[in-house]
């Protein structure tokens, strides 16, 4: 199997900026997906398992936001 190496640009400036942008994007995708899952009736334990984090971590990060959005 040939594993393609990721081409890293010579100047790190764009790659470093991309990392920050990906982190912000990951946060947005996570927030939207967790809200959707909760409104579809998922439990926090199921969401945590799908994300690969603990139930406590996902609950701490999202519960207040999701619950305040439902009010």
């Amino acid at each position, binding site marked *: 199997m040939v594993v393609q190496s990721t081409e890293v640009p010579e100047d790190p*400036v764009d790659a470093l*900026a991309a990392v*920050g942008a990906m982190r912000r*994007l990951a946060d947005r995708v996570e927030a939207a997906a967790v809200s959707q899952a909760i409104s579809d009736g998922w439990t926090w334990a199921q969401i945590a398992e799908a994300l690969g984090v603990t139930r406590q971590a996902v609950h701490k990060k999202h519960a*207040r936001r999701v619950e*305040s959005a439902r009010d």
Partner: protein
Amino acid sequence: MFERFTKDARAVVHAAVSDAKATGQSTVEAEHLLLALAASPELRSLGLDREQLADALIEEERRSLSVVGLSAENYQQRKPASSAHEPRFGASAKLALQRGVKLAQLRGGRRFRAQDLLAGVLAAEHGRVPRALNLVGIDVDELRGRI
């Protein structure tokens, strides 16, 4: 830390915090301070309004993501998604505040003004603020010199 801040500088910090919160972000960053400073005479003299600065930041992220082949069309950056938590100050905003305070001290000023905050935000060599400003053709070095 905020006791030496002028009324205007406080208003900028509050606006930056509100903006981060209103767009569902967990941290206040330098770009939120920049947007909150959009009404300052220095930025207005460049012919840029808040909307244009916000668009420049969106474009900055779009380009950064494209470097790794990503597109975030379905996950808009400034979609209102109010965060229930009070956002914390992120690394870039902390640096901007520290640099602004230092520059104000060098100036010998007793008060910390919105202008000092802008100088602190613009002191960044890297990050979203200089990248976004470059995208709209702003010479950040020249702008720093004017403040």
